[in-house]
């Protein structure tokens, strides 16, 4: 390797420039680049400290339990949304599919007397099937995901409303579908099975993204689809799988939603489409694809809920929460742009 070292001693001044020690800004940049969930985690921590100072009731375990329960639906949805956004796609219909799936589950039990387990399964098939429609339109007809899901958002919402005939469905409190609302106490922290289901969902998706070839291919496709194709990845298969996996996450969210509203409500979760995207974006996943981690979306969902809860406890008008979330979204995307722009 003598030739190599000789070459290195002849390194140009440009090389010297590249080799000089990084500035503090470059260091921060490099760390954030490697750990995309770090900045949302810091925001969550700071928000929790601030709201605790404003009103110490924020830290009461009942309050924290409430926050966790309120996060469960949008949090589960955000896990699915993350997978789609990592492919540089977006799913505007995700909440509409959840409401439809949840209504199908509840109505099958209430109107047709279908056993709960079977109704859950059929509802899950509806969720995955709806996402297959999205995925096939994106991969076969080559439409932009934004347009596809903008269209299917209306379609799935309409189907839900037609199917519901303007009525909500109430289930017997001991119905199987409401098992997701069963309370689980860990010490004096009162969670629900729904919260635990969400945590498991994040574990499964996080594992698949990090430790399987599918996960790597998802990142590669989101980063640069043409390069991924040339590298030998079947791009369409990966894209379709992202929507199908999102369908499974939706099914989990639909089950948790059924538990929270006590059955099926065509008007529940109206804002869930955008709220799931908000959670993903605040969680540090790039809307341009290929960058982010799923746990960031969980943190993002918690940030939104903590602001909601904390500002209410501090006595602010609820509209300030909407304002705060808007600022957070713009701040998160600005940070993402910065992380992507300069070379570390």
């Amino acid at each position, binding site marked *: 390797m003598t030739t190599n070292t000789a070459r290195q001693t002849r390194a140009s001044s440009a090389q010297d420039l590249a080799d000089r020690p990084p500035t503090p800004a470059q260091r921060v940049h490099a760390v954030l680049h490697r750990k995309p969930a770090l900045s949302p985690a810091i925001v969550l921590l700071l928000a929790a400290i601030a709201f605790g100072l404003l009103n110490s009731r924020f830290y009461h375990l009942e309050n924290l339990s409430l926050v966790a329960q309120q996060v469960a639906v949008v949090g589960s949805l955000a896990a699915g949304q993350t997978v789609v956004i990592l492919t540089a796609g977006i799913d505007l219909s995700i909440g509409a599919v959840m409401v439809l799936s949840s209504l199908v589950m509840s109505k099958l039990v209430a109107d047709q007397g279908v056993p709960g387990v079977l109704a859950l399964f059929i509802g899950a098939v509806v969720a995955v099937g709806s996402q297959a429609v999205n995925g096939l339109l994106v991969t076969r007809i080559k439409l932009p995901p934004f347009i596809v899901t903008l269209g299917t958002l209306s379609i799935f919402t309409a189907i839900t409303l037609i199917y519901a005939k303007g009525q909500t469905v109430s289930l017997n409190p001991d119905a199987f579908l409401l098992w997701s609302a069963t309370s689980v106490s860990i010490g004096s922290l009162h969670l629900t099975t729904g919260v635990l289901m969400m945590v498991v969902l994040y574990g499964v998706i996080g594992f698949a993204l990090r*430790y399987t*070839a599918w996960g790597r291919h998802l990142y590669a496709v989101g980063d*640069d689809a043409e*390069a*991924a194709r*040339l*590298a030998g990845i079947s791009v369409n298969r990966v894209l379709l799988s992202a929507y199908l996996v999102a369908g499974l996450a939706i099914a989990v969210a639909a089950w948790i939603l059924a538990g929270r509203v006590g059955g099926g409500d065509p008007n529940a979760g109206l804002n869930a489409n955008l709220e799931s995207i908000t959670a993903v974006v605040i969680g540090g996943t790039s809307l341009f694809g290929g960058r982010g981690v799923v746990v960031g979306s969980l943190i993002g969902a918690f940030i939104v809920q903590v602001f909601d809860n904390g500002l209410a406890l501090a006595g602010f008008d609820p509209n300030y929460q909407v304002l705060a979330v808007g600022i957070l979204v713009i701040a998160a995307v600005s940070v993402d742009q910065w992380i992507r722009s300069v*070379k570390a």
Partner: protein
Amino acid sequence: MTTTDHQAPVLQATGLVKRFGRVVGLDDVDLTLYPGEVLGVIGDNGAGKSTLIKCLSGALVPDEGTIRVDGAEVHFKKPQDAREAGIETVYQNLAVAPALDIASNLFLAREIRRKGPLGSILRMLDIGEMKRQATEQMKKLGITTMQDISQAMETLSGGQRQAVAVARAGAFGSRVVILDEPTAALGVRETGEVLRLVRDLREHGLAVILISHNMPNVFLVCDRIHIQRLGSCAGVITPQSHTMEDAVAIMTGAKILTPSS
């Protein structure tokens, strides 16, 4: 290594035609590649270099013509088909995922799974093994400028990225490695490094196709040079038989190469 008449070609394309609508990208092109040689492919912009290479690497399907690998006819429908036949390509855009690390990129689309149920049921990757093999491959090719195999691709310099892409091709290509403009965006030092890698691939017994605009580089490393002009092959020369001026003249049509020369 210039006379390879007695050897059977490892890759042979005959009468390749590729049309894009009314534009003819390739017009009846023949290309022959012998084992253990570096074949340069040169030509002006639009001469059909990239189209030719894409047909050989499975990224495009030719409209007419045959491709033979070790004498057997093949029909590549996608890049994986060519890859399974032992032909690896380093594309101009390198076909890498910038956010993934070096080891992940080396094994992109052919990851190694863990043994036992963790791999077969949970489909878990053997990240340690991939890193180990990646390090080994880099060492084998004498690529020592990268400190950390788990660095993301986007943190590497252009030459380092090129080196990773070449290492990937060298690691998995059992017959042929095709390099599309590997030195186009590189500085002098990095270009020298990539050309050294090209020679190393030949030392390891691979046949190499090198597409380049850079005439001195082509004359430096290639055994034979295939000249494309206006979608056809204008002739095949060697660095010994012709000068760079001749090559440019043939490339631009100022000089016509007769089959006997």
